């Protein structure tokens, strides 16, 4: 097995795909407005023609690269390239003001690498164990897990609880369309054959994440981004190394744990790591003035999410974040179903993903340290050239999945929906999680009742079920309880 894994990853073709993925990812991440989710959604259709291993590793390369790449524009322009780099931008830009953008980017690169590697190790250690545990999951446990994921959407996504819930609800209602999996009745299909199998997931994703952003770029298509910094002293100094090694590994671990939680993505990983570092630091008052730990922590944290998010995705088919949700689509296209069987029947693939992800992190480190100047140049590509390219990729990509023109219409529709959602400051991620977790909750609820012949006690018969019930209560009521305590002590 080990030999198979090594030969499947350590060959020039796979290396090229990973490097290509990381390179594309860094460029996409560096460009403000193009997020990691969008990058993966855009590259996804290119993997249809590839084998499973190169296809998935290409996507993982884009994911890892984009999460890191966001810090480049965050540091230089104070405009985070991806939401995950928002925390980095705070202190990163202070470095640039002092003319030390090279130093900041070096710290960011090395910390991202450490965070990424920590998460890959965690993925490699935890995922196979969790896959064994996942066999103990039956319909009631999956139902409660999905509800737990949905409750997280409500409490953490976006700035407003109401908008998050609304958006998640939109995703769940979209999932109602199509043949009902338990009784076989068509729902909301309006006798249209295209709607029988439900909303095609990938065109919806491309529309919500990529097309909507491209629409948005049109608004300021002729305003160029100004970059006039000299990049030097990228390799961190001895004292910077000390700080990186103190903060990045812990942040990586925090990021991994946040990645495992369904629905919580890299931006949350970055902010939690940032505030944790502030608590750990001996000089919290200097955060915001441009100190190394304020870059090392969020960058270790957001790249830590990458491996964590794949853990529930591979073992149970539950996405850790929006990118992992797209990767479920990528696996399904290859005829692979995420879940415990993946670990016993496609062992080589699973371990190749682990090893390939490590290689992707190394590629990110090497590319980051050697070619920063090139990536900075990417920032000055005129949007008038970039945006039409994205339009083309969106249309081709959504047509390619089923060679059905209806899907292009779906993509355009959700591009417009996504555009207006962003206009009113709604995050689109909850919609995607709703689209995946909604049907999972529904079908498992009904399947559980079929199994128990209508007896509701089936939801409370196992320890795992009770744990999820407790977690759901904590997520839903936790904020209210802490608020209550705060009011009492105040």
């Amino acid at each position, binding site marked *: 097995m080990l030999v198979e894994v090594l030969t499947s990853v350590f060959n020039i073709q796979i290396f090229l795909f990973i490097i290509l993925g990381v390179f594309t990812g860094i460029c996409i991440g560096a460009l403000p407005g193009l997020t990691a989710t969008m990058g993966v959604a855009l590259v996804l259709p290119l993997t249809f023609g590839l084998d499973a291993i190169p296809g998935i590793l290409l996507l993982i390369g884009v994911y890892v690269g984009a999460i890191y790449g966001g810090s480049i524009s965050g540091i230089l322009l104070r405009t985070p390239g991806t939401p995950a780099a928002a925390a980095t931008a705070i202190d990163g830009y202070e470095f640039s003001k002092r003319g030390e953008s090279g130093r900041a980017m070096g710290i960011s690169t090395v910390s991202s690498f450490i965070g990424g590697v920590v998460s890959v190790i965690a993925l490699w250690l935890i995922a196979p164990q969790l896959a064994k545990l996942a066999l103990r999951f039956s319909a009631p446990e999956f139902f409660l897990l999905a509800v737990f994921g949905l409750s997280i959407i409500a409490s953490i996504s976006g700035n407003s609880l109401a908008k998050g819930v609304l958006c998640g609800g939109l995703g769940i209602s979209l999932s109602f369309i199509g043949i009902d999996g338990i009784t076989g009745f068509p729902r909301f299909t309006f006798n249209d054959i295209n709607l029988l199998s439900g909303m095609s997931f990938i065109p919806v994703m491309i529309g919500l994440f990529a097309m909507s952003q491209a629409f948005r770029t049109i608004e300021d298509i002729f305003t160029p981004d100004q970059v006039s910094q000299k990049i030097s002293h990228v390799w961190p100094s001895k004292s910077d190394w000390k700080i990186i090694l103190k903060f990045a590994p812990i942040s990586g671990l925090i990021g991994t744990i946040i990645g495992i939680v369904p629905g919580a993505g890299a931006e949350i990983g970055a902010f939690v790591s940032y505030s944790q570092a502030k608590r750990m630091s001996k000089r919290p008052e200097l955060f915001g003035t441009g100190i190394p730990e304020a870059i090392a922590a969020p960058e270790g944290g957001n790249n830590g999410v990458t491996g964590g998010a794949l853990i529930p995705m591979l073992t149970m088919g539950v996405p850790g974040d929006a990118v992992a949700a797209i990767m479920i689509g990528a696996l399904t296209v290859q005829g692979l179903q995420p879940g415990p069987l993946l670990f*016993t029947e496609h062992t080589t693939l699973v371990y190749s993903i682990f090893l390939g992800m490590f290689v992707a992190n190394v590629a990110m480190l090497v590319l980051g340290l050697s070619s920063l100047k090139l990536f900075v140049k990417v920032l000055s590509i005129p949007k008038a050239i970039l945006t039409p390219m994205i339009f083309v990729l969106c249309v081709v990509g959504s047509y390619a999945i089923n060679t059905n023109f209806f899907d292009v219409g779906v993509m355009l529709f959700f591009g417009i929906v996504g555009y207006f959602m962003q206009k009113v400051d709604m995050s689109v991620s909850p919609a995607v999680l709703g689209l995946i977790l909604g049907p999972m909750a529904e079908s498992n609820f009904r399947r559980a009742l079929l199994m128990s012949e209508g007896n509701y006690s089936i939801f409370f018969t196992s320890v795992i079920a009770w744990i999820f019930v407790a977690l759901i209560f904590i997520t839903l009521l936790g904020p209210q309880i802490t608020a209550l305590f705060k009011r009492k002590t105040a």
Partner: protein
Amino acid sequence: MKKALVLLMLLSLVLGSAFAQGGAEVNADNYPSGPVSVIVPYSAGGGTDLVARALVDAAKDSFPKNISVENRTGGGGAVGMSYGAHAKADGSVISMITVELVTLPHTGTGAGLYYDQFKPIMMVNSAYSAVTVKADSPYNTLNEFLDAAKTQTMRVGNSGVGAIWHLAAAGLAKAAGVTFNHIPFDGAAPAITSLLGGHIDAVTVSYAEVASQVKAGNLKVLAVLAPERISATPDIPTAKELGYDVAIGTWRGLGVPKDTPQPIADKIYSIFSQAAKSDSFIKFMNSSNNIIDVMDSASYGKKLATDNEMFKSLIAELGLKQQ
């Protein structure tokens, strides 16, 4: 101006179709005179897709003007098969047809699809249902399992309501005079996972789908619902031998629109029946646990008709008919 534009568009449509008609004068001797596409009604990378691609790959030398596989998914296969049934009847569009062709029309989700819209070319492979339980299950034979089902409710997992493995379990229950508690899953893999975890009592998916877990010693097959024993597993009895007259499985084959000239259909049969005998195709099918089961046009046509009747009555009895 607007009128002129509409007129121009209409004119070009008429002329265009006239030219297309003119080009469609095909005779069997020079078939294939143009590019040919094979419609797969399921997504790329799935079981049907892989078989189609392997077969097309083995036949590609007979198509000098190129042959390509096109995935048109949706509606549980209805979208792609409808497209294939209504394509030009000149052999330029060949469809992979599957057992859903004779089940979907009866569940009411076939969107006007009916098996007689196709001229069957040949059957390529078949896969029969395997009644599978956990390795440590107390039941060692199909009889023990069905006897137990008379006194307790057996939870039998399938790959989706109205899907072929649901119908297989229902057909077995009917033959044995018992009732199962059918638990639908979203595909075969989650059903197998649930069986491995001990949450259900049996699954009735194909042997190929449980093969790796059976070889690993986690699951055991009590019987196959096949007309005769499967060559890959000669030790497993058929339900028929044990006294339950039921044989239900899926199959895949090639079909063209029903108005396709017979000489062209014959030419397609001769090309693909050769391809099905090629080493590369046989090797692929063996390595992917698929069983090659070639049937010529006439016997395949008969099978379509008998299966259609069987599923029609079975689905009606199950109350799965919609609307």
